[in-house]
């Protein structure tokens, strides 16, 4: 990938004796769409506020193009933010909101007008210059907030759960649109969300956080397919998490049965946890599988059925488009690649 | 933002010098003798003892009585006024409340001065009475003139808070009370009045506080011999020059009012929520 633009080194943050960030190391690259993903209170917004300059880190370094900026005030950083509830200035119209940053820099009025209309076009609000921002819909306010930030040509755009206030359909549209805008302006986006689907569908890199600690950094596909621990597997998508032990490389044992797999590098007989995604499990005739059970329930979910199969040791969740009657004896089948072996989490 | 936090600093210093220190000085003066020089001060309880002499106790009692009468008058007249206003259309209510508010903004001295020309022995009211063939009445320099002046001055302080709590009352509550079989009197007492208690409490506190400590209206409408707490304090500071005794009276007045506010606030059921 290209050059690092932001580096966090051993960053910690305390609020009144409470440590909300417990040593964050993270590299963010130019043109990257990076998402900080985690449940509320995990510290993701604090990281964003430290990068923006609204909070100072308690310890550690924040480098921007190799220079420590942790003491630089927000108005001197080449970073702009799209706030959670947009924080538009209600006493200014759309044009004046977007032009706010340029007006401060005393840019020529004709240049401002030109840039504002270009920005509004980029976010799909052409001709909205004179509108009252308080009368716009949530989606439109969102777009004004993005235009207001991008017009300053920042190197990095921070977005703090910007889609949280929108309804489901509009959210999908904006996800697509944000990705498009990011490609067009070609800068780094750092996006904070607790919505795993949002994170997976938009990002180049996903950073999963919990309790002020980074749990995993990786591409959406890696995060989904190769979760590093139970928290990540659990937080991202539905999963069956099964305790087992690694007999040797490429052979794992769980529910008392040995399965071939593709994971290596664990100690012999190390206790591990195994993830099986519900959509990776197939329901087959009982005699065609090592793992047998009966259908305990079936629920229609729109595109697929969610079936719970009760085996000797536990219930498995399976997503399939085929219908299976409750009470039917079935076998569960999955390939070697479908088995994801993870290190067992302490605690 | 940490930058903005420092903005309170000027006022911290200001309020310390011009609010806290002066109060402390009153307390200090009230427990010392030695007049106005701080060099030869001596602690004493004499100032407070002096207050309990009959001459001064009478002043306290008279002030209290006058404050009470004014407050009750304002409460009765003001509650009715606020209640009637609250039953007009919203537009009319705004205009009427503005009409009640305007006198508050006009210089109190000028309004009191106007009463003199109305109430004096050869004033307008007496000329009207003579015109009607009635005997003129001496009204100036009596309890009557002082109470009229105080009531006129303080009535808005009662009307506005009561109107505020009546206006925000949900009218469906009254309908609900009727619906549940309450007669108009019960409805008023159990629903309307109960819900307006916060306004009544605030108005009563304001009027009582202002009437018991007033000294201009008693002086102008009551004449020189009409001494209330306020006049007594003024005398000590302006003509007698016993600042220590004056401070003791002031301190007592401030403390008494503070205690009364506390007691009144206890009556207010919404104390924890609003106001």
């Amino acid at each position: 990938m290209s050059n690092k633009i932001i580096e966090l080194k051993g960053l910690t943050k305390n609020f009144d004796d409470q440590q909300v960030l417990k040593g964050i190391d993270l590299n963010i690259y130019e043109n990257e769409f990076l998402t900080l993903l985690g449940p509320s209170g995990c510290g993701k917004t604090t990281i964003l506020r430290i990068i923006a300059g609204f909070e100072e880190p308690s310890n550690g370094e924040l480098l921007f193009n190799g220079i420590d900026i942790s003491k630089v005030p927000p108005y001197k950083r080449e970073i702009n933010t799209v706030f959670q509830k947009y924080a538009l200035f209600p006493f200014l119209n759309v044009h004046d909101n977007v032009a706010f940053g340029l007006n401060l820099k005393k840019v020529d009025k004709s240049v401002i007008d030109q840039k504002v209309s270009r920005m509004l076009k980029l976010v799909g609000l052409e001709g909205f210059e004179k509108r009252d921002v308080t009368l716009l819909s949530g989606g439109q306010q969102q777009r004004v907030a993005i235009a207001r930030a991008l017009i300053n040509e920042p190197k990095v755009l921070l977005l703090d759960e910007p889609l949280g206030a929108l309804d489901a359909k509009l959210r999908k549209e904006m996800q697509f649109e944000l990705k498009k805008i990011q490609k067009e302006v070609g800068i780094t986006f750092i996006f904070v969300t607790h919505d795993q689907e949002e994170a997976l569908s938009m990002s180049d890199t996903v950073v999963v956080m919990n309790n002020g600690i980074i749990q995993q950094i990786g591409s959406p596909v890696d995060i989904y397919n190769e979760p590093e621990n139970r928290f990540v597997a659990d937080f991202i998508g539905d999963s069956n998490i099964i305790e087992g032990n690694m007999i040797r490389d490429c052979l794992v044992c769980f529910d008392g049965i040995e399965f071939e797999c593709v994971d290596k590098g664990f100690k012999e007989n190390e206790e591990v946890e195994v993830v099986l995604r519900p959509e990776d499990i197939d329901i087959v005739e009982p005699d065609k599988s090592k793992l047998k059970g009966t259908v305990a329930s079936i629920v229609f979910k729109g595109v697929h059925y969610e079936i719970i199969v009760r085996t000797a040791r536990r219930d498995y969740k399976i997503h399939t488009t085929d219908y299976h009657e409750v009470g039917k004896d079935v076998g569960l089948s999955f390939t070697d690649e479908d088995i994801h072996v993870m290190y067992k989490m302490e605690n | 933002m940490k930058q903005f936090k420092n903005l309170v600093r000027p006022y911290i210093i200001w309020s310390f010098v011009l609010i806290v220190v002066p109060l402390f000085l009153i307390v200090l003066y009230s427990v010392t003798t030695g007049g106005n020089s701080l060099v030869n001060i001596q602690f004493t309880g004499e100032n407070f003892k002096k207050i309990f002499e009959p001459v001064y106790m009478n002043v306290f009692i008279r002030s209290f009585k006058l404050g009470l009468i004014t407050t009750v008058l304002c409460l009765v007249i003001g509650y009715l006024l606020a209640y009637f206003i609250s039953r007009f259309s919203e537009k009319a209510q705004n205009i009427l409340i503005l009409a009640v508010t305007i006198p508050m903004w006009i210089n109190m001295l000028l309004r009191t001065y106007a009463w003199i020309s109305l109430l004096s022995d050869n004033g307008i009211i007496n000329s009207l009475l003579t015109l009607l063939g009635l005997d003129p009445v001496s009204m100036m320099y009596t309890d009557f003139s002082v109470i009229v002046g105080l009531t006129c001055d303080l009535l808005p302080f009662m009307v506005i808070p009561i109107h505020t709590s009546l206006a925000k009352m949900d009218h469906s509550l009254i309908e609900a009370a009727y619906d549940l079989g309450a007669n108009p009197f019960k409805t008023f007492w159990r629903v309307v009045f109960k819900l307006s208690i916060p306004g009544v409490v605030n108005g009563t506190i304001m009027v009582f506080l202002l009437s018991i400590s007033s000294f201009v209206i008693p002086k102008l409408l009551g004449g020189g011999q009409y001494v209330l707490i306020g006049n007594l304090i003024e005398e000590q500071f302006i003509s007698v020059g016993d600042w220590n005794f004056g401070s003791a009276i002031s301190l007592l007045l401030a403390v008494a009012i503070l205690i009364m506010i506390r007691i009144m606030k206890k009556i207010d059921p919404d104390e924890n929520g609003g106001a």
Partner: protein
Amino acid sequence: MKKGKIGSIIYVALCLAFFYIPIIVTMVFSFNSSKSLTKFTGFSLKWYEALVTDRDIVSAVGVSLSIAVIATVVSTILGTITAIGLSRSRRVVKEWLLNVNNIPIMNPEIVTAISLMILFSSMKIERGYVTMLLAHICFCTPYVITSVYPKVRSLDPNLANAAMDLGATPFQALTKVIVPMIKPGIYAGVLLSFTMSFDDFVISYFVTGNGVANISIIVYNMTKRTNPTINALSTIVIIVIVITLLVVNLAPAIVKKRQERKKKAAGLEDGSLIETEK
């Protein structure tokens, strides 16, 4: 019901008469040609002439106005920055300062007055214009704080951050974003301070000296004799205050109406847009 309505109209009218008859009488007799305050002998402007030629009154008007203006400006600035600072302060500081701030509001005026009188005399500050001004700032600022602070507290804390994020220095964030947002509170504070200062008698009376007098003090000293000049002065003051109050109270209503009309128009235009978006 109808009967009750008429009764209530009569009652309200009587109360308003109680408020306004003294004021109206004052105004009428300011145009009287004789010195009498009871018999209207004919129209004249001679008391207005007497007013502008009376040195004491003219200088008192000057003192009242200049003190009201300076005290309003200072206490508005001081009160506004304090209110903004308070919203970001620690709880202890906040509670303490708000309590201290309440003292001049809750304390009887006369107690505030003598406390300041004692302060000035024990600090050996000669009583006069400056002490009167300081005292006025002292009792106006708490009202500014109480009218501005709730507005500051209801602000989205991210607004100031947003301004700084877009390149505003803290001072620019203050003047370009926070102050415009809390304008209604500031205006209320200005209005309160100005009238409180302009009308004040008790505190001015105790802290002044050296013959410096404002309107209230002059009136207080003149009431011993009948003096229609005071009526003329009253009339002018009343007219100015009533006009100011009417403008202040009616202006927001007019602006609001206009905005609503605008909102309606915008709503109609927006209709199609919102439809397609959903």
